[in-house]
């Protein structure tokens, strides 16, 4: 439960309210290894602790990378951290995207908004395992072009022949030459075999619900859908119950969950 001190070594602005931080151990200890989809509890000393998914390359070595959206007092403090500042880190916790288990299949990654951050490690892992996959597709939705995370990387991925990339925004003014419409419209436009596709989705819950409906409507089995859930957490080790989601604890069964396991409660407003 004791956070280790990590030092911020780089800070990049992604959007108006999101920042990517790179950290290294400040205690002389080893770096952490993690699986794609796992998260850390990040502690802004004296302010509070929040769960943040790791957005780095799990096989890439190098610093620990987190992309954080400023949505409250703690995340705002984390976003304000400058190179040289220290943050507390506990983890990694949680389940992983099943990238290693989908050999021979089409891996379809559907990201909405800041949901691209928890999916980035899965994408990097999938690219590292590209020979094992039949096909790799990334669909990204954002509010406006200015709200898209990792824009430079998306540009590079567009030119990468190992995968197909489609990006859409909900609204755009002049200058945007790309697609406009919600992310589910990209699913409708995608020509794919639902029987041999596994989908990973992360974004606002309502977006994931619409995306899941679109994928199931396209013929996909609910068993082949995986989502990453977000809940407030306190302990992250199943003691406090803060992250309870129906009969599950997001810190233990999640954050990555099989959609089939939560479908029945996913649409319940009371949960």
């Amino acid at each position, binding site marked *: 439960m004791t956070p280790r001190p990590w030092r911020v070594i780089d800070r990049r602005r992604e959007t108006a309210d999101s920042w990517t931080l790179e950290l290294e151990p400040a205690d002389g200890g080893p770096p952490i290894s993690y699986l794609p989809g796992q998260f850390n509890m990040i502690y802004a000393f004296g302010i509070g602790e929040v769960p943040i998914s790791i957005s780095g390359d799990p096989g890439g070595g190098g610093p620990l990378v987190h992309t954080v959206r400023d949505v409250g007092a703690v995340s705002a403090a984390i976003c304000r951290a400058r190179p040289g500042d220290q943050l507390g880190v506990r983890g990694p916790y949680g389940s992983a995207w099943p990238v290693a288990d989908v050999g021979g299949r089409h891996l379809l990654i559907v990201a909405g*908004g800041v949901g691209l951050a928890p999916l980035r490690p899965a994408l990097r892992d999938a690219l590292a395992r590209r020979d094992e996959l039949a096909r790799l597709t990334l669909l990204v939705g954002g509010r406006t072009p200015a709200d898209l995370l990792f824009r430079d990387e998306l540009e590079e991925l567009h030119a990468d022949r190992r995968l197909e990339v489609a990006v859409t925004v909900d609204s755009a*003014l002049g200058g945007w030459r790309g697609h406009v*419409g919600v992310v*589910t*419209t990209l699913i409708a*436009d995608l020509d794919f075999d639902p029987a041999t596709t596994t989908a990973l989705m992360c974004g606002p819950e*309502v977006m994931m619900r619409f995306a899941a409906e679109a994928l199931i409507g396209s013929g996909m089995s609910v068993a082949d859908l995986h989502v990453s859930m977000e809940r407030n957490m306190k302990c992250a080790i199943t003691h406090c119950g803060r992250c309870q989601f129906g009969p599950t604890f997001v810190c233990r069964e999640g954050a990555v969950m099989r959609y089939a396991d939560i479908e029945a409660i996913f649409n319940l407003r009371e949960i």
Partner: protein
Amino acid sequence: MPIRSIEQVLTEIKTFEGLEQRHLDRIAGCGTNCGFAAGEVIAREGDPADTFYVIRHGRVALETSAPVGGSLLITTLGDGTVVGWSWLIPPYRWRFDARAVEETRAIAFDGACLRGKCDSDHELGYVLMQRFAQIILDRLQATRLQLLDVYGEPARR
């Protein structure tokens, strides 16, 4: 590139997937190939909706007039999608502006011709109404999701 008939193209369009050949033949009989330059206006809101289009290759923007600042871009449509459903529903007037975002090849269908065939062949009319109702439903759902502004700023915690 092999030249394909309009009937052949229609079999690859999701909206017309699984239609009986006799229905495809009747629909294709009202279609002609056409093209639009980037920026070209395809339809204007309020104008008679005598035509609908199937995009073969390109991108079309659907826009509506905004009270301030000209037009509001609602969505863009790509390969294999249908542009226009107002030809099927009275008063047969376009509900949006449609503009080619890039050079676009399409099939233009004569709505009056097809309405006439639907009037004389109610089975064709029912099938087309079902397929176009799906388009309207999908666009309505997409617009609802846009209105929800799901990526907007959450309540601060």
